[in-house]
C-alpha cells in the first residue's frame, strides 16, 4: 500500500502528533479528556461518529451506497449453505481424513473395527432371526437378504448419530473461526460412507458366490436406494446437528429413532409379514417410509437376483422409490433451511 508509510510513521516513538488519519471526531481539542471521568462526559466530548449522521464534507467517510457498490466489500460469515461446502472440498477432505484418523488412533484394530461391528450385528440377527425364529426357512439366502439391508441401515444410523454430534463436537472451531458449518454434518456423511464401502464389498462378494451378476436393474436399484438413504440421512442430520446445539435432548431422541429404524424396515423379516398381520393402512404407512423403500431396493439389487425370482416386491416399487427420493430431497431442503436459520446463533450458544 502506498500510504502505509504515512499511516505508520514511527513505531518506536509514536508521538501525539503522529500522522495517523483517524476519522475526525468533532469537538476534539488537544486535551480530549479533562479530568471528568464519567461516561457521559466522554460521550459529550467524543460523540460516536458514524455513518448514520455523516457530515456532508467529512473527509474519508463514504456514503453507505458507496459501500454497497464496492464489490470488494463483503459481509463476513454469510453462510452459503451446502454450496459453500462444495467450494471447500479440499478442507472437507482433510476434515474427513481427520475424523477417520482420530477415530482409530491408538487402537489395535484400527479400521478393522468397521468390519467388526457389522459382523457382530450380522451374527446376532442371523442366529436370532434366521435360526431361532426360522426366517432362514421362509426366506431364501437369508444371510444376503438381511446383510444387504443391514449395511444400508447401519449407514443411515451412523450418519444420523455422527451428524447430530458434528457441530457440538467441533464447538471449539465453530466458536472461533468462521467456516461453512454444514461442513461438519457433511463430513459425518462421508465418514459413514467410508464405513459403508467394506460392508458393501462383502455383500457383493457373498451375492456373487450365490450367482449374482451385475445388471442395469440391480445397479440402478442399488444407486436409487443409496441416494434415498444419503439424502435423507444428511437432511435429518443437518436438522439434528443444529437442534443438538440448543437442546441436548436431541441425541437421546436420535438414539431411540435409530432403534426404531432398525426394526421398522424389512431387514430381518420380509415386507409382506406386515401386510399379512397389520391392517391395510398400516402396511401402506409402513411402505411410505423412505428407508423401507431403500431397503427393498437394496434387496432387489443384491438378494433377489440370487433367488428363484418368485418373491414378490410391493407393486410399483420403482415409482414409490422415486417418490421416496423426492421426499428425501424435500427433507434435505428443510434440514438445510433449519440449519441455516439456527447456525446464526451457534457461536453464542456454544
Amino acid at each position, binding site marked *: *500500500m502506498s*500510504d*502505509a*508509510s504515512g*499511516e*505508520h*510513521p514511527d*513505531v518506536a516513538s*509514536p508521538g*501525539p502528533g*503522529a500522522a*495517523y*488519519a*483517524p*476519522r475526525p*471526531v468533532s469537538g*476534539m481539542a488537544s486535551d*480530549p*479528556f479533562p479530568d471528568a471521568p464519567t*461516561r457521559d462526559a*466522554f*460521550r459529550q466530548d*467524543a460523540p*460516536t*461518529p*458514524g*455513518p*448514520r449522521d455523516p457530515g456532508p464534507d467529512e473527509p*474519508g*467517510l*463514504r456514503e*453507505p451506497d458507496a*459501500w454497497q457498490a*464496492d464489490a*470488494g*466489500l*463483503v*459481509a*463476513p*460469515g*454469510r453462510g452459503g449453505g451446502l454450496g459453500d461446502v462444495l467450494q*471447500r472440498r*479440499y*478442507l472437507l477432505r*482433510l476434515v474427513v481424513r*481427520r475424523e477417520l*484418523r*482420530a477415530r482409530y488412533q*491408538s487402537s489395535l484394530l484400527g479400521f478393522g473395527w468397521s468390519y467388526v461391528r457389522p459382523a457382530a450385528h450380522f451374527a446376532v440377527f442371523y442366529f436370532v432371526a434366521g435360526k431361532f425364529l426360522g426366517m432362514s426357512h421362509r426366506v431364501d439366502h437369508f444371510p444376503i437378504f438381511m446383510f444387504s439391508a443391514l449395511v444400508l441401515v447401519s449407514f443411515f444410523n451412523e450418519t444420523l448419530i455422527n451428524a447430530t454430534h458434528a457441530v457440538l463436537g467441533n464447538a*471449539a*472451531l*465453530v*466458536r*472461533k*473461526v*468462521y*467456516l461453512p458449518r454444514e461442513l461438519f454434518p457433511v463430513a459425518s456423511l462421508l465418514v459413514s460412507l467410508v464405513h459403508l464401502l467394506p460392508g458393501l464389498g462383502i455383500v457383493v462378494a457373498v451375492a456373487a458366490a450365490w450367482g449374482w451378476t451385475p445388471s442395469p436393474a440391480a445397479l440402478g436399484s442399488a444407486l436409487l436406494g443409496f441416494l434415498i438413504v444419503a439424502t435423507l440421512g444428511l437432511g435429518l442430520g443437518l436438522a439434528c446437528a443444529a437442534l443438538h446445539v440448543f437442546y441436548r435432548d436431541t441425541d437421546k431422541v436420535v438414539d431411540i429413532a435409530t432403534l426404531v429404524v432398525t426394526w421398522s424396515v424389512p431387514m430381518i423379516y420380509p415386507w409382506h409379514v406386515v401386510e399379512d398381520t397389520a391392517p391395510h393402512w398400516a402396511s401402506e404407512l409402513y411402505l411410505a417410509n423412505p428407508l423401507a423403500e431403500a431397503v427393498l431396493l437394496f434387496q432387489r439389487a443384491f438378494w433377489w437376483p440370487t433367488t428363484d425370482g418368485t418373491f414378490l416386491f410391493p407393486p410399483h416399487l420403482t415409482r414409490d422409490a422415486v417418490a421416496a427420493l423426492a421426499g428425501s430431497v424435500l427433507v434435505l431442503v428443510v434440514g438445510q433451511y433449519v440449519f441455516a436459520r439456527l447456525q*446464526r446463533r451457534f*457461536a*453464542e450458544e456454544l
Partner: protein
Amino acid sequence: MTPALVLDGVSKQFTLRHARSIKNITVRALRRERLRDRFTALDQVSAEVAVGESVALLGTNGSGKSTLLKIISGVLPPDSGRVLVRGRVAGLIEVGAGLHPELTGRENVFLNGAILGMDRAETVAKFDSIVEFADIGAFLDQPVRFYSSGMFMRLAFSIAVHTDPDVFLIDEVLAVGDPLFRDKCIARLTEFRDSGRTMVMVAHDVALLRSLCSRGIFLERGKVVWDGDIDTAADLLVRKRRQRRAALAAGRAPKLG
C-alpha cells in the same frame, strides 16, 4: 481512502437463559422469576478502517471488544447493522482452536491451513517457512498432544501468520508464549503491518498496542467512546484501570465495564 472494514451501526445482544429444562422453567415461572435476561454487548458501533491501518480495540473487561472481533470474523452475526470486509479475514482469535491433538504437527499444518482458508498448493509452498517459524524441530511428525504448551502455541501462531490475510484479527494471543517467541511474533506483526495489511487487535498490554497500532477505538459497555489516536485511547484505558483498582481498594464492588 479504501475501506478494508466497515462497521455500520453494529449492535449485538446476548440472551442469558436462566433455565433450560422443563422442570426448571416451570419452577422459575411459578416463582415469577425471569426466565431470561438480555444484555447489550454492542450498541450501534460504527467505524471505518482503511486498508493498511492497524487499529486497537480497547476497553475494560466486558466492554465488547472480543464480541466485536468475532462479528468482524463472521463467527457471530450482528443483530442489526452491517459489517463489510475486503479480502481474506483471518483471526488469531484463540489460536489453536483448529489443531487436532491426535494428528501430527505436519498434518495439522495442512488441516489448520485449510481451516484458515489456504489451499493445498499454498500450504505446500509455505510449509518450510511455517515449520521454521514455529521451531518445533523433531516433533513435526509427532501427534500434537505430545507438544508442550509453548510448542503448541508456536505452531498455531505460525500457521495463522502464514495465512497472509488481508485483514488480520488478533485477540489476546500474545499474552502467552515464552518471551523470545513473543518478540518474534511482534516482529512478524510489525512486518505484517508495514507491508500495508490491515490489523485489528485486542490486547491488555498497553505498551504493545501503542507500538503496533496507530489508532485506538475505545469501547465502554458496547459503545464507542473514543475513536482516534492510540495514545489518547491508551491513556484512557490506563486511567480506567486505575479507577477500577481504586474502586476495588475502596471496597466498593466495581460495576461491569
